[in-house]
């Protein structure tokens, strides 16, 4: 038998070409293309009073300059609000090029196309824009105060106000024997993939077709958006996603201004045009996430059981709202994690500020929600003097309660119903892994030596594999090789490997004979995109279904040829054979030949399918219910999201003098259902944890009051090097298969980053003896907090009723 591939730590098929420099990333393409550079606003908030391009016209190699005045038809309209929601009261999106007003430093005002990027930047420098500066709104507090407005027609700077409630939370809190209030803050961060955004377009004037390549997480989305903006039939636009140097959410927004301006210029100029973002541009004109202020009221009993939970938060959505309310809705729903409060109310405002837009970054609102909930549970444990893990266990949804309906609406517009999960088992595994029960003795021994150590714990549930759908196409060629396509894109997750593993099992062929293509609208035009840890769940399932369809056809065609029953056949290593009689067999390639009745023979193999050789003369060569070829195409559209879960523990040591925070151990227990490839899943966890460490301890987006981004470089935005991440991450898996899809898969891509802010806040609080209520936290922040807490008996002080430090 061919050994089963799903579940094996197969080495990635993507790697060889990436390792020899033969990857094809966006800027590796279009070597002869003209290049585009963008004039970006230096002001956070201003009226544009004049644009003078005269001096730029002298630049040699200049091909074109475009400002808003040059945009026509749908291009002159604002960019789309991608995900409308009834709670949005003032949905504002930017123009591809600023019309009269700019609302963040970095907003595109004009673009230059020249022979190369150097010359395009020369011209950008010579364009003179006159501004009338307006007062910028920076930060959630300023947005809430609304002394000034970002958009004059968005009163209070409110884009949306939204409430969900299950039960009567206020009454439950009022009646509870114990009550706490918390104020929490979490700052902005950003995805910062190593490759920035980029787009290349070619207009074929002979066929009147546009072909574009873009470094995106959703090629079909870009295709539809560009077709709409350029007034082209969808069939005239092809979008190809080349190798993508990381996404982490920021490449899901579509279209970016550059994604419509590059094809616009390519069509106008009749030559290929390319835009490759530089690092500073990425910081000031892509997207950020995470910034929220949160107020929590909780009522609980003496066991720590939450009777009522009321959360009010303010979400900084930046200058525009292209991605709707997805991030704060996820915060507000995924906040509940593995817990079942007696009653729950959540209310949020999504607020405009004169800063870069906020769209999903790996975790997409979950890190903030988990932070709110886990800080609350730590506060309850502290208040009652209970073990933190016990308080969590008391509030867990039990396995017998699955599927569990929270009574809320999730980000996909569908009920928040958990499909599966065994939270007590996950917690037991984590406690065993980290040595939870030995901790008090360890901490006491360390304290006796003058060392400050802390243990943090955080639990999360992650809705993954969100719809609407993905599709898969599996075709067996006459060579016996298998071509697989799905429409969603890849940014390093190893989809070519994981999907090939699935097909290898379904079809009984070697992985070496399988080729997977993702994100190419020519190969698969229907798709949603890669986000929400959904690729394995949705495309993996669709590809499995498509492969099963192809397999049924293989068995039918082979059964006719071998004069056997389809049920008596098996496929082993690319051969279809009669079970128990392996000598009666034919190759998949031969079956593929026979599946396509031919008039002409092109080679020896195809003679077997020609009209004087095969076929029942009483039947049409292709039956009414059949079609030529050996392929399957199917779709997977989940009823609802599937819910992965996990729990992290970290042990930190804080330096008594310098307040440096050192990670001693990092433990992860993770349940993403069936593992397709443990090597890849662990890699995703490693990367997520590293991003979480960055977000908790190092990375922040620092705007000054004028709305200038102060750290728009890798010199100043402190992305972790190897020296900042844990030397090892101890991982244990739990595999609770999802009942919602054919493979039992739940997503794994975002998990590692979700509980980071919560788990580090928990550990540092444990080490320091006072509650951490603002993240991220630097040594300077911690040093300052110590000074503030000095003189009080900080130990065992409640987390509650602390002002946020920022």
């Amino acid at each position, binding site marked *: 038998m061919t050994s089963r591939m799903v579940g094996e730590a197969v*080495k*990635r098929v*993507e*790697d*060889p070409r*990436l*390792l*020899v*420099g*033969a*990857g*094809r*990333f966006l*800027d*590796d393409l279009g*070597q002869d293309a003209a290049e585009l550079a963008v004039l970006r606003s230096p002001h956070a908030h201003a009226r544009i009073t004049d644009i003078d391009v005269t001096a730029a016209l002298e*630049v*040699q190699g200049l091909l074109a300059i475009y400002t808003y005045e040059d945009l026509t038809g749908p291009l002159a309209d604002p960019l789309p609000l991608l995900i409308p929601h009834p709670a949005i009261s003032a949905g504002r999106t930017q123009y591809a090029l600023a019309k009269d007003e700019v609302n963040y430093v970095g907003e595109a005002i004009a673009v230059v196309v020249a022979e*190369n990027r*150097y*010359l395009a930047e*020369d011209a950008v420098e010579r364009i003179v824009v006159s501004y009338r500066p307006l007062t910028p709104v920076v930060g959630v507090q300023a947005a809430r105060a609304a002394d000034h407005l970002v958009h004059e027609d968005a009163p209070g700077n409110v884009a949306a106000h939204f409430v969900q409630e299950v039960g009567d939370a206020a009454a439950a809190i009022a009646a509870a024997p114990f009550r706490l209030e918390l104020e929490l803050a979490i700052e902005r961060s950003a995805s*910062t*993939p*190593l*490759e920035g955004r980029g787009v290349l377009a070619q207009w074929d004037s002979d066929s009147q077709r546009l072909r574009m390549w873009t470094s995106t997480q959703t090629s079909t989305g870009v295709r539809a958006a560009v077709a709409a903006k350029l007034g082209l039939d969808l069939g005239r636009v092809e979008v190809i996603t080349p*190798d*993508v*140097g*990381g996404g*982490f959410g920021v490449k899901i927004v579509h279209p970016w201004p550059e994604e419509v301006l590059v094809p616009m210029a390519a069509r106008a100029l009749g030559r290929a045009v390319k835009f490759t973002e*530089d*690092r500073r541009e990425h910081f000031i004109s892509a997207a950020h996430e995470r910034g929220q202020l949160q107020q929590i009221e909780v009522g609980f009993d003496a066991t720590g059981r939450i009777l009522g939970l009321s959360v009010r938060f303010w979400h900084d959505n930046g200058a525009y709202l292209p991605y709707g309310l997805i991030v704060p809705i996820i915060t507000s729903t995924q906040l509940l994690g593995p817990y079942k409060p007696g009653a729950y109310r959540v209310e949020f405002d999504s607020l405009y500020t004169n800063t870069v837009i906020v769209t999903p970054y790996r975790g997409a609102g979950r890190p903030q929600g988990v932070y709110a909930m886990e800080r609350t549970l730590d506060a309850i444990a502290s208040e009652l003097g209970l073990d933190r893990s016990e308080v969590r266990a008391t509030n867990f949804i039990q396995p017998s309660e699955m599927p569990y309906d929270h009574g809320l609406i999730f980000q996909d517009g569908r009920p928040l119903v958990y499909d599966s999960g065994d939270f007590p088992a996950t917690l037991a595994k984590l406690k065993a892994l980290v040595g939870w029960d030995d901790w008090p003795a360890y901490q006491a021994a360390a304290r006796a030596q003058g060392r400050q150590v802390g243990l943090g714990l955080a639990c999360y549930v992650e809705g993954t594999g969100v719809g609407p759908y993905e599709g898969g196409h599996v075709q067996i060629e006459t060579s016996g090789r298998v071509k697989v396509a799905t429409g969603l894109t890849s*940014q*390093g*997750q*190893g989809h070519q490997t994981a999907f090939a593993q699935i097909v290898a099992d379904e079809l009984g062929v070697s992985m070496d004979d399988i080729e997977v293509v993702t994100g190419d609208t020519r190969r698969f035009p229907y798709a949603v995109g890669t986000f929400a840890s959904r690729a394995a769940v949705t495309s993996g399932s669709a590809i499995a279904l498509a492969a099963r369809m192809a397999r049924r056809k293989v068995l039918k065609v082979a059964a006719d040829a071998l004069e056997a029953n389809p049920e008596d056949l098996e496929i082993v290593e690319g051969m279809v054979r009669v079970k128990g009689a392996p000598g009666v067999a034919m190759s998949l390639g031969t079956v593929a030949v026979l599946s396509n009745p031919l008039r002409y023979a092109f080679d020896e193999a195809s003679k077997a399918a020609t009209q004087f050789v095969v076929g029942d003369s009483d039947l049409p060569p292709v039956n009414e219910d059949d079609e030529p070829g050996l392929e399957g195409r199917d779709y997977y559209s989940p009823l609802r999201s599937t819910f992965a879960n996990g729990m992290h523990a970290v042990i930190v040591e804080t330096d008594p003098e310098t307040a440096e925070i050192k990670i001693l151990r990092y433990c992860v227990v993770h349940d993403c259902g069936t593992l397709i490839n443990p*090597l*890849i899943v*662990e*890699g995703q966890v*490693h*990367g*997520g*944890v*590293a*991003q979480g460490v960055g977000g908790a301890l190092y990375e922040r987006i620092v705007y000054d009051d004028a709305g200038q981004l102060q750290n728009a*470089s*890798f*010199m100043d935005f402190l*992305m972790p*090097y*190897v*020296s900042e*991440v*844990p*030397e*090892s*991450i101890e991982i244990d898996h739990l595999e609770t298969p999802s009942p919602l899809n054919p493979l039992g898969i739940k997503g794994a891509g975002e998990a*590692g980053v979700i509980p980071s802010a919560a788990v580090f806040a928990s550990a540092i609080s444990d080490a320091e003896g006072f509650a951490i209520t603002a993240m991220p936290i630097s040594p300077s922040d911690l040093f300052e907090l110590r000074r503030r807490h000095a003189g009080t008996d900080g130990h065992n002080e409640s987390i509650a009723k602390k002002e946020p430090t920022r």
Partner: protein
Amino acid sequence: MTGSWHELTLIVNGVPLRATVPARRLLSDCLRHDLGLTGTHVGCEHGVCGACTVLIDGVPMRSCLLLAVSVDGQAITTVEGLAGPDGELSAVQQAFQDCHGLQCGFCTPGFLTTITAGLIGCPDPTADDARDMIGGNLCRCTGYQNIVAAVLRAAELTRAAAGEDADAAVDSGQAP
């Protein structure tokens, strides 16, 4: 506006290549766009991420911080020059696949060149040595644990290959 133009010859992966570039052309752009060697990637253009690291006369340097004219005549090794003549992956490249040391692969060329040079100076690294070796390169995907493992694995593969060479030399009667 573009200043003076310069003819230069770079010995890239052992092959002399000529280019005519303006004085301001970065080495990274020259390699990628004048010479078509796009394996060297540009992640920050300010020398922090290390993705663009190439070896100049064997020493790792950031090609985004060098002007092409400043290395006229020098020997440059890029990621395209690491595999064997028959395309066989080098020990470092093989170790990256073995240990899942790459995900998106964008930063990888800079790690590969850095480690290739690093292992010459430190052929038997400890885990701490490995972390030091890659301490100046950024990766956003992997969390680095598997890259550290790949450094150690590459050293192991290199030692094993050297052992085999020595055995082969003994078998054929040559001095090791």
